[in-house]
């Protein structure tokens, strides 16, 4: 099927909000190159359980495309129209299965050396779209807090090497109640600025219930039943006669909370789907808690664009044979606190980079805190770069310096 042949009936299998959205944009969709239409439908098909920021972005894209006259639209999307596709991919059911189409498209782009052109086309489009529809600044400056659990330690390891050029290193945090102070601050912040998916907490072990009561929360420990079910499914697929990465990805993409008998959560379907995506799309998120936290943070910032993000890194399991880790039978495996500290340190750096990609980056702040060392890193607009704090600071003092 070509985009010009799309009708309202083409979207009969779409969830209700997604169907209403794309049927309303049918005139625009019919003019798009097939590759671009499939990419847009991949985002739109999941509209019903996207975060508000993602839904806004989808609507903005349709609105932007509709605002262009035909010649301008054709010129902007020429790079997508020029992509040469294998017949089997072009003739696949890209309307109902846009993710499978994208997998096939990606493989084709690499094998036919079109990937660089495609990336450039995507970048040019994103620039044009964002220039026409700039992202709105957040209602308050973004704040990311990264906590390294007290068990994370490695003798001789120098903390925050990558973050130090960007802010103030605090060699001595003097606060016996640092975590409690931090939780109280976050509770107030969330209560003062209630926002759907605006305050998110991701824990590498079990979530602190006091904090979880006020923030949308996910945790590696809390998701254990879901992780185990997923790992069982993966094992079943790998054990089947015709298993392979494509089949595995297709199967995982089709998993829903309902198919895992995962009851609805109070945080809503968007957040529940987000947690499932972290486990089905993220590499290593099912086996290493540190990877779970880092990837979930990246995806939360990219997709939900929260104003508050709290990450707590806890010890991950030691590395074992991959097949063994995927079996899920590793409960007696010992933790790796030294490796986990290195993972967490890199995770804090990546959280800062990911936060810098969002609107209001110049006003955003990050605090990373090692509970074992009682050392911290403060990065924000008021923090001088590449500086060391001259005196010990309490958690309250650090938060005050960072966000006032």
């Amino acid at each position, binding site marked *: 099927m070509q985009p010009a042949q799309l009708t309202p009936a083409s979207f009969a299998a779409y969830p209700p909000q997604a169907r209403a959205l794309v049927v309303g944009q049918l005139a625009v969709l019919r003019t798009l190159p097939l590759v671009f239409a499939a990419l847009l439908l991949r985002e739109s098909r999941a509209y019903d359980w996207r975060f508000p920021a993602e839904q806004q972005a989808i609507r903005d894209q349709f609105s932007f495309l509709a605002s262009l006259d035909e010649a301008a639209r054709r*010129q*902007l999307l*020429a*790079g997508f129209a020029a992509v040469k596709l294998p017949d089997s991919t072009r003739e696949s059911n890209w309307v109902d299965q846009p993710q499978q189409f994208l997998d096939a498209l990606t*493989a084709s782009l*690499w*094998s*036919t*050396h079109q*990937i*660089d*052109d495609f*990336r*450039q*086309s995507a*970048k*040019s489009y994103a620039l044009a779209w964002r220039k026409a529809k700039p992202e709105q600044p957040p209602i308050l400056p973004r704040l990311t807090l990264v906590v390294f659990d007290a068990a994370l330690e490695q003798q001789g390891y120098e903390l925050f*090497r*990558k973050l130090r050029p960007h802010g103030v290193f605090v060699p001595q945090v003097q606060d016996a109640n640092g975590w409690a102070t931090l939780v109280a601050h976050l509770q107030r912040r969330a209560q003062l600025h209630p926002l759907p998916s605006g305050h998110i907490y991701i824990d590498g072990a079990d979530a602190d219930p006091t904090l979880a009561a006020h923030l949308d929360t996910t945790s590696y420990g809390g998701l254990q039943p879901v992780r185990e079910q997923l790992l069982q499914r*993966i094992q079943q*697929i*790998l054990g089947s006669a015709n*298993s*392979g*990465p494509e089949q*595995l990805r297709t199967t*995982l993409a089709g998993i829903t909370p309902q198919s895992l008998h995962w009851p609805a959560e109070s945080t809503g379907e968007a957040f529940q789907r987000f947690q499932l995506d972290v486990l089905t799309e*993220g*590499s*290593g*998120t099912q*086996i*290493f808690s*540190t*990877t779970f936290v*880092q*990837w979930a943070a*990246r995806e939360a910032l990219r997709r939900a664009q929260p104003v508050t993000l709290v990450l707590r890194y806890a010890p*991950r399991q030691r*590395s*074992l*044979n*991959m*097949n*063994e880790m*995927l079996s899920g039978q590793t409960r007696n495996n010992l933790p*790796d606190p*030294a*490796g*986990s*500290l*290195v*993972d967490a*340190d*890199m*995770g804090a*750096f*990546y959280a800062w*980079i990911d936060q810098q*990609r969002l609107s209001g980056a110049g006003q955003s702040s990050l605090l990373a805190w090692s509970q074992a060392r009682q050392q911290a890193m403060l990065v924000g607009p008021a923090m001088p770069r590449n500086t060391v704090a001259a005196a010990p600071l309490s958690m309250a003092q650090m938060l005050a310096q960072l966000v006032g």
Partner: protein
Amino acid sequence: MSNRPSPAQFRQASQQVAMDRREFLRAAGLMGAAAPLLGMTPLRAAAKPREQKVVVVTFGGGARDEETFAPDGQENIPHLIGTLLPQATFFTQVVNRGILGHYVATASLATGAYETFNNFADTSPANPTVFEYYRKALHRPPTDAWVVAPSNGFNRIGESDARGYGAGLGAGVILPKHLLAAAMPQHQHGAYTHLLRDNYEDPYYTPDLQGGEFELNQLDSMLKLSVEEFTHHARSLSSADELSVYVARQLMRQHAPSLLWITLHDMDVAHSGAYSLYVEGIRRSDRLCAEIWQTIQSDPEYAGRTTMLVLPDFGRDSDFDSGGNGFQHHRTGDALSRTTWMMALGPGIRAGAVVDRPVQSTDLVPTIGARMGFATPRAQGRVLSEVL
């Protein structure tokens, strides 16, 4: 409208990577009299001995500058920098324009042509491999060309489907983890799990390792090892790459192959997202490269007549490319993920020299051919004159 980055733009990005490496080397005082190398004359006068041997070591898990030749990364590669680099000609800008998947990229390195098959398919390269060129042209026996590789998918890398080459003309392929799986009763695998680690490139695709009669036969007839010796030694090793190097050394002792290809893979654990494990893998590869060179120098069959070429198959994504997730993958195709380096050591190769001009990873095969004296007619790359 053309959105394609111009060759000049890509060249500029790759050159920046190379320039950074050069600056790091200069800062570390490692460049010596390298500058005159640009446009140098190969050291033909240093009369290469006849019957050259070549050992290729590839990192089948990309390594970035940040964790290797950048200032913060140099602590991870003390042997490459301190021991090998002063003896080597170093290419700062090796560009891989092919598919950034480890099996297909390693196959491209081995054929000198950008292969385009599915990285996860059980497929032979379409173009003749360097092993086939070598054995066919110089009438060498099967025991003279070997590949020691990580297990997943690499079993077909020894020979191609190319007409006029293929069956019977390629390299023997040893997959050490398959050997170990075959040697161990299933219930004892637990003691060796650290050595049986498999592919990380796909988040899930890790089929159980199988081993059988063929692998046990390899142990006995090729490596001249009993199951007991092999498993006893394996127990003392800490990773799959160490097992690969152990097997490679055994091959060198038993058959002294003239063309030996070793692919190290531990660092590809990066795909699991654990940065500490990725860095550990790099440190191990660094040490193993030095050990391989030491083995070459101390073995009369190899000393003084062997070229060692060390190169990652490609890099990994930049921290700052929003399309990727930093070190974890190599999916963006950005300049950092496509640009890597190569080290060449051996008789007649200038020591402590740096070559800045851009070369391609497909240049490896024609260069090996020129060095060993055989043609590589279907390779796409060019001979690197600095290594002749």
